[in-house]
């Protein structure tokens, strides 16, 4: 197995302190290799989004270590973390969260305006790869939920991240579109050697994933048999 792109070791995240404290993540260990799709399932409030936030350098864990492509996140300053998010991490959000003012093609160009990217993917080709080239000039309000999610995935991939963090991508989609979107995620992950973590409620899409972990009360279970 190749070197994992993302490693979480003994990661805990506690909100608040004393009697009021809530343990969002409880000694989580997770390693994701390039080209691998890992699904995290579990009830609401189990800490799935917290896992993405910690893995995505949005919040520092209370204890434990997060290592991204060999770089430990602990001790990095905000500017460096922002830089890492821009260059190494791609986010796909629940409802795609596209920028209302931008056309599909501009959604993909936007991350490239945040700063210099190493070998970015061509927005036009990427739009073709996710099957949206024919709607390049449409704005989010002129697209369906599935189409928006495809563009959201393309936007996350345009900077060639090593890690893709996907938050409930099928929450707003019907059955068929959910299958298409997750299949697209899995295909891109494998074709470009991205390490993908997908948080989901949707058990029908798990067959696209390499591993499935269940998360309950901040604890990450061992991979469920498939």
């Amino acid at each position: 197995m190749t070197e994992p792109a993302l490693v979480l070791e003994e990661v805990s995240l506690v909100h608040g302190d004393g009697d009021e404290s809530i343990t969002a993540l409880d000694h989580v260990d997770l390693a994701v290799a390039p080209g691998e799709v890992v699904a995290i399932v579990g009830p609401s409030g189990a800490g799935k989004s917290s896992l993405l936030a910690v893995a995505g350098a949005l919040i520092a864990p209370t204890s434990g270590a997060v290592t991204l492509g060999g770089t430990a996140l602990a001790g990095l300053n905000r500017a460096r973390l922002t830089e890492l998010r821009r260059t190494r991490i791609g986010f796909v959000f629940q409802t795609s969260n596209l920028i209302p003012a931008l056309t599909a093609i501009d959604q993909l160009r936007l991350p490239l305006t945040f700063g210099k990217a190493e070998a970015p993917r061509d927005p036009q080709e990427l739009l073709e790869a996710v099957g949206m080239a024919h709607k390049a000039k449409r704005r989010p309000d002129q697209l369906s939920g599935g189409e928006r999610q495809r563009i959201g995935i393309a936007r996350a991939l345009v900077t060639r991240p090593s890690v893709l963090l996907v938050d409930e991508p099928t929450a707003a989609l019907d059955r068929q579109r959910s299958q298409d979107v997750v299949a697209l995620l899995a295909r891109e992950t494998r074709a470009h050697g991205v390490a993908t973590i997908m948080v989901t409620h949707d058990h029908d899409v798990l067959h696209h994933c390499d591993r499935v972990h269940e998360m309950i009360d901040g604890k990450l279970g061992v991979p469920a048999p498939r």
Partner: protein
Amino acid sequence: MFLALREIAFARGRFALMGSVVALIAILMVLLSGLSVGLVNDGVSGLQRMSATSFAFQKDVSKDAAFSRSLIDREAVDVWARQDGVEEAAPFGNALVNGKTDHDVAIDLALFGIELDSFLAPRVAEGAGLSGAPDEVVLSATAAEEGVKVGDVITVEQTGAQLRVVGVLADQHTFGHVDVGYLPLRTWQEIRAGVREGDQVPDRVYREITAVAVLGEDVDLAAGDKAAGTTSMTTKQSYGASPGYTAETSTLQLIQVFLYAISALVVGAFFTVLTIQRRPEISVMRAMGAKTAYLVRDSIVQSLILLALAAAVGVGIGLALGAVIGSTPMPFALEAGPIAVATAFLVALGLVGATVAVVRIVRVDPLTALGGNR
């Protein structure tokens, strides 16, 4: 710029609405500026076009009515002439009178009594200058608008004195919104004293003047005042002594200050609302790795585009309106300098308002981009 321009294009309705508010403020600024300059011209252009650098009035005269209240003995002229740095000192008389021409045109005049051989003697553009005859008067160019021309005879209502219009000056010379008429000092002294034809004139009348007009760059006014027993002001300070000048200009300045404040607040409020509304997308962009500086810069560029375009449109419309107003008798004059300064202030304060508003971006937490539980 990438995002700024696209968001303006996307929310063009909102930006147009906001822009028209700024443009309306800019129109108002231009008109106010024109009115200010016009009122200043009407109030003190007669003084502005005199070469005197300062005036020495009666000791302790009230500063805002010095020209109408002051009365001094002309011996002060000689005292001032001897002061260091004074090139010339000349007697100056000032009085506001009502008159009527032989064509029955009523005209108010600010009479400036001067000695013909002094540096205050005016240069005429039309007709002849003062030749020394006691009944001659030279009027401001604006008197023509009232229907007074060379050759007319003006009867001063207060004394019945008759003045022949022999010449007209090149530009607007007004004082306290009234046309200036230059006339020989002796004639002025008689009119001021209320001397009627055939009256016995006491000698002291011919010694009375309003002020000493002083010409000279580095004059020690305090020393001159001490020597001559006068209270002096520079010509600029003396504008405040023109009737109504301070009240008019300070009112307009107050309105302008309020307009700047309104512009800053309105633009600030707009960008506050816009930023709050954009919070979800801002948190997404921050999660994606956009630096705060990128987002703040983007919003400030946006406000700069908005302000600059709106101000340009507003100033353009204001200038067009001003040209129309300028052709009416209203005291109105457009000058590039004050308008440029006012526009710069408008844009700058609008930017301040926008900057204060978009600093909110700093407080948007990228974590909120992730849905579900946190």
